[in-house]
């Protein structure tokens, strides 16, 4: 595969074509915050935290690094006033739902986000879709999915599938940035197939 040289935060980075900007940055040891990204899953581009500033053909734009393909001579800035502002507001938006999620708390400190900026609606889920996509893409089970669209979007376990598939898996719990996946599962379990609690505690 042909090699592509781009510049990230002032450093030349050489990667193969087809790499995303996020992967290129990771290879160069430059950290970009992500929430909905996972190596085992198709890039999703939902949380928009990984947004960076790119300059190509004389134009500056803001793109999500987890999806944006590298190109020859691309200039990438992983931090700038605008990038930081985008991340700060996104964190503030997410903390209206999950004010205590550890990763959000850590990033909020880094970007100066105020967890109380927006009216709370503690749903705990940030809709990163990791559980949904992991179940579909890695496990091929579709036991948990998105319900509804827009601001009404939620995740939910399909009781019939969950009763069958989730018992011996529960792998998505560890991916969830807020532990909502587990809570949603337990709720489904309690409502749809009560009395079948697992004796031992959840996998770490």
């Amino acid at each position, binding site marked *: 595969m042909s090699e592509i040289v781009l510049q990230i935060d002032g450093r030349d980075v050489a990667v193969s074509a087809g790499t995303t900007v996020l992967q290129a940055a990771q290879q160069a040891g430059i950290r970009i915050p992500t929430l909905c990204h996972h190596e085992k899953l198709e890039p999703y581009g939902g949380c928009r935290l990984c947004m960076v500033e790119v300059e190509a053909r004389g134009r500056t734009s803001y793109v999500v690094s987890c999806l944006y393909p590298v190109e020859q001579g691309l200039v990438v800035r992983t931090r700038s006033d605008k990038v930081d502002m985008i991340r700060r507001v996104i964190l503030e938006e997410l903390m209206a739902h999950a004010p205590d999620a550890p990763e959000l708390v850590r990033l909020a400190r880094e970007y100066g986000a105020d967890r109380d900026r927006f009216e709370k609606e503690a749903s705990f889920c940030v809709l990163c879709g990791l559980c949904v996509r992991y179940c579909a893409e890695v496990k091929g089970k579709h036991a948990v999915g998105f319900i509804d669209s827009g*601001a009404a979007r939620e995740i939910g376990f399909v009781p019939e599938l969950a009763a069958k598939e989730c018992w011996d898996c529960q792998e998505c719990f560890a991916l969830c940035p807020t532990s909502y996946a587990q809570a949603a599962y337990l709720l489904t379990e309690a409502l749809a197939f009560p009395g079948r609690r697992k004796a031992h505690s959840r996998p770490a």
Partner: protein
Amino acid sequence: MPRLHSAVELEEFRAGILAARDPARPCIAVCGGAACGGLDSAAVAGAFAAEIGRQGLEARLDLKTTGCHGFCEKGPNVVVSPGDVCYFEVRPEDVPDVVACTLRGEVLDRLLWTCPDTGRKAVHMDEVPFYRHQTRILIGDNPRIDPTRIDDYLALGGYAALAKALFEMSPEQVLDEVKKAQLRGRGGGGFPAGSKWETTRNAPGDEKYVIVNGHEGEPGAFMDRALFTGNPHKVLEGLIIGAYAIGSHRGFVYTRHDSPQLIRHVRTALAQAEECGLLGEDILGSGFGFHVELHFDVGIFVSGESSALMRSIEGHPPEPRPKYIRTSVAGIRDQPSNLNNVETWANVPQIIGRGAAWYAGIGTERSKGTKLVSLSGNVVNGGVAEVPMGTPLRTLVYDIGGGVPSGKALKAVHFGGPMGGSIPASLLDAPLDFDELSRLGAPIGAGGMLVMDEDTDMVEVARYLLDFLTTESCGKCVPCREGMRQSLKILTNITQGRGKDGDLGRLDDLSTVTGLACLCALGRTSADPLKSMLRYFKDEYEGQIAGGGAAK
């Protein structure tokens, strides 16, 4: 209907249609457009048919039901030709009098347009102010066409531009003509159609597709439907010419699932064009083949967005895709796919027929041709208007629209629906121009123009538009879903008198981030109305926050 094998056969067929028509015989055209239809113009058409039958006038009077005439406010509309005598608010009881007058070569005074100030009457279409200030090169044929009859379109010169393109021009020349005409997309973005066509034409691919975007999801916009339902062949002819220029043999019409009349007319038009050899294999014996499939939206707004629309045609849910690869290069099934709006396609036949120089002579330096505008809101004459680009908004509101009802003052006009913006009355001399209105923060969008009077609460307008979009966001990405959720909460609080310090800063941050960070254009433009409010009506927002709601 005969299958036509050459341009000559097309012209012979057209000559036959014209020869069978007596231009002096009166024709009564009853508008069957959406608004008039809603006022039961079908009963009016039925009454005409009955009266003609009762008096045995079939040989002396023609009758047709047509698409939207434009002046929806005053429907049911009836136009009698020759002379284009306009009757408004026609009821079935009026029919015998209209027939009697028409037979005598007279005009029925009581159904004419009457000037509300002077009481003066207007007889002919070009005397009615609503029409007089327009340039109706796209929609002007509507009152002459029964959309279910290809004959009517052919009688007006239809498909001559297609024959010209196929037999007198190379695909490159057609492309060149569209580029020279500087045609820009009418679906919202104002993107140059010629360069988009060229991208698809030059992109590598086994197959290339051309698509009509007839979704028209913008609330308050109804001109695409008026044009497509009323004159489907015009759009189709444009599409076929575009396919020829781009090198596409397969096209799609993507349109509303909830408009049975539109679907019926487009279906009929496709079948008739195919039967005449204007569509399908070896069009007019030129060797060029092109097939069209009809697809329907799933009733959500975002399905009008290009990548979502193409997902939908592929049979997937219409979720937008990030646009790092353009659909003109990799669209439907990853093949180069050129999407244009209904009105964009409808401009193509006249560009080819009359030439780019003629077309580029209409409009402003960078916005050419005419634009259809749906006039609604606090305006006396609501309806579909067509004006040259560059027309001052004042002409639309006052000369065509008849001004604001009940003598109220104008406060603002809003373009582009939930992804557009509002500008204050003080900017009413701004021209209808893609770039100029974008600069002012009220991009033309698809052409829905909402007129607002002095009583309008601008916080409520932003809240209302956002409320519409909130249910239309797919919810995948954070700045769209959460930006709308939080903005809507803040706006709702303000309108209910619960605004607080810092709300404007919060709205500012939310709309900035939404504009920069969303995945698709729905999200990215969702905060545009709000941005225009903070630009022009900030005082009103501050006032409501300080004063605990709208001062009533």
